[in-house]
């Protein structure tokens, strides 16, 4: 397990409504630097929405979110600052189909970090090597398999050299035989000391890699514990029921 540092994400009584629907109901928790947090829970429980509030893809309406010392509020500068430091990987990859793999990876470093093309490409290639697909650099996303695309998406987020990585169900849209290559890339990342928050249904990953598992239901955290304790000794009824449904 990694040495954990200071608090890097602080959520304090975070609420969000979609119209009448109270989707986040007062989340309070902190994540430390270098920590790997896996969030599990039934669908519709708001776990994806929560992770998306952490870089303002969704706005929270009440409470406080502090990421890397900057509070997420309506200040555009704060939002941009946080987005630079927080990488995100989506369920549907969301690669830019009109750009080559390398262009996908170097786009934000060039235009947001304002690095030179040479530097961006050098770092971009390093990241592609890290996820083990440097040979695909000059292909287009449409020419790659789902697993390869998701690894490009990881490399794209990493090329910005973020402090935090968010994963929103990164393996849910993949064929079973491709899940492993993505999980391997995530595991390597976790071992390198990156702060990770991942929404996933991969219990193996949660048990093997996470420092902490958060069980999320009905817009709030039901239970959070180190993985062994969580899987072997859950306290809450809801957790027990959920685990009994997914662990046959």
């Amino acid at each position, binding site marked *: 397990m990694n040495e954990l540092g200071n608090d890097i994400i602080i959520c304090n009584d975070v609420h969000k409504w979609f119209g009448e629907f109270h989707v986040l109901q007062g989340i309070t928790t902190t994540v430390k630097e270098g920590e790997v947090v896996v969030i599990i829970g039934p669908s519709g429980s708001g776990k994806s929405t929560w992770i998306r509030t952490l870089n303002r893809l969704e706005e929270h309406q009440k409470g406080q979110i502090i990421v890397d010392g900057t509070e997420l509020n309506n200040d555009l500068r704060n939002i941009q600052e946080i*987005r630079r430091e927080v990488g995100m990987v989506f369920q549907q990859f969301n690669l830019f189909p009109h750009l080559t793999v390398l262009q996908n990876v170097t786009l*934000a470093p060039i235009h*947001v970090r304002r690095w030179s093309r040479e530097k961006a490409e050098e770092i971009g290639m390093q990241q592609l090597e890290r996820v083990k697909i440097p040979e695909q650099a000059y292909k287009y996303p449409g020419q790659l398999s789902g697993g390869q695309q998701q690894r490009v998406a990881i490399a794209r987020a990493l090329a*910005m050299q973020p402090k935090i990585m968010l994963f929103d169900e990164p393996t849910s849209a993949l064929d079973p035989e491709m899940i492993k290559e993505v999980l391997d890339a995530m595991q390597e990342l976790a071992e390198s000391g990156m702060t990770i928050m991942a929404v996933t249904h991969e219990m193996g990953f949660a048990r093997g890699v996470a420092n902490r598992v958060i069980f999320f239901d009905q817009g709030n955290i039901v239970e959070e514990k180190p993985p062994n304790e969580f899987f072997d000794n859950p306290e809450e009824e809801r957790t027990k029921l959920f685990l009994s449904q997914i662990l046959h």
Partner: protein
Amino acid sequence: MATTSPIIKQEAAIPFWRDVRVLGVIGQIIFTILVVIGLTWFIRNFLINAENQGLQTSFSFLNTTAAFDIAEGIEYEATDTFGRALWVGVINTIRVSFIGIILTTILAVVAGIARLSTNWLINKIATVYIEIVRNIPLLVQLFFIYFAVILKLPPVKDSVQPFGLPLFLNQRGFALPGLTATAGFPIWLAFIVLAIILVMTLWTIQSRQEERTGEPVNKIGSAVVAFIVIVAIGWFVTTAFTSNQAIMVATSRNIKDFDDFEKIYLLRVDTDALKDLGVELATLDTLKFPDNIAAYKDELTAKLGTGEVSAEESENIEAQLDILGDAQITICSVEDTVSEINAASQLRRLNIPVKVSNEKSMRKTGAAYAAGDCDLLAGTQAQLAAERAILEAPDTHELVDVSVPPLIVNTPAPAGFNIQGGTKLSPEFAALLIGLVLYTSAFSAEIVRAGILAVSKGQTEAARALGLNESQRLQLIVLPQALRVIIPPMTSQYLNLTKNSSLAVAIAFPDLVAVGSTVQNQSGFAVQVIIIFMAVYLTLSLSMSAFLNWYNKKVALVER
């Protein structure tokens, strides 16, 4: 092959009336026969009827004299042929369509994006524009723009000048800055092509060097420098060596160049008269440079404009302005020629006030010069040599060859009851252009909006998550992807614009259809003219489609 095979009936047993391949071929043959029969019937019918009614079926009328005038377009006189007249119409159609397509593209993108804006006001303005314009017939809009807007603009001397730009709007049309190509332009163009080839070669060499040594080379920098240097050299070489322009002046004036007119102008400023009007000596002393005189004139005009001067004082100022105005240099030249634009722009560059006195032909212009109406006669070297030969006393006049840059920026300037120089748009052209652009853009804006909406939300989210700002997101992610959805329907809009330009006939802009109708009335060759209409529009439409299809393939996404 001894294994048990499944039960498959023997091949070759398909009768031809059940064979899909044979049926396909038969169907096509029948269709072709029907088309050929139909066409033959139509053409035969036409030929027989034409013969019965004494209609001629040849295109020989194109070579006969047209004997009517065309208000605007490329060079044309009433003594030219019908063929030339139709060609003027074709060029006018292409001109209005080409400019229209460019402006439509810009307006459609702006309006389409505005329609998606979260800013309430911008969004509503775009919505109102689109809903109003696309629900009113184009013909009605053209009438409105032409009769109710453009023809109701102020007369020429009160031209509207929006934001103080060199743009003049009045009931005789619009005058805007334009570029005029001169004799040296093709040569300069050759220099540009040469520069592009060299830059590309340089780029390749440097890229190889970069790959070999691994050290980054400033490719963009050297490309830009090389390009600018070659193009600039081309500019000066062309200016110095390709001019066919000259001016004729009285030998006694001792003129070697346009710069020498400065002396004449300054001498002509009647300082004694100004002194009599009470201008202070200190001020008079400053009036030794054209720039200062121009500034002083502006000062006087401004003072007059405030309205805070007494009647006596304003009379005095006007008298001063008259004196300064009398000092201007007068140019005789043929209207709208390179010679005129060059002479006027060269003198204006020196801040010398200019009056252009122009006629339609060199003959009349030469006569005006001979009568002593102007300080110089501008024309080509050959024209002026001919004019000089027929002067009463050729020895007292000399020709001075002047240089002309390959491109002259031609800015309009008010001159009394007229606007001089610049590119002029007639009221008809302006009305047609504005009408077509507004109308087509309303539809195209919806296409742009649909294209942008067709880019999935995930793309936007990914761009945001990477920290790209809104304009980067639009430029780098959304528009390039929207383009492939936008191009095919946009092509039809461009074609619509081109074809709708035939409504020009309603406001008397001489496009192909307007000119063609006159040709048809005068010559009686109705069918031939209509065939020409169809051939021209078909050619325009097909070439445009071909280009846009090629472009569409280029921007298409690469997939497995």
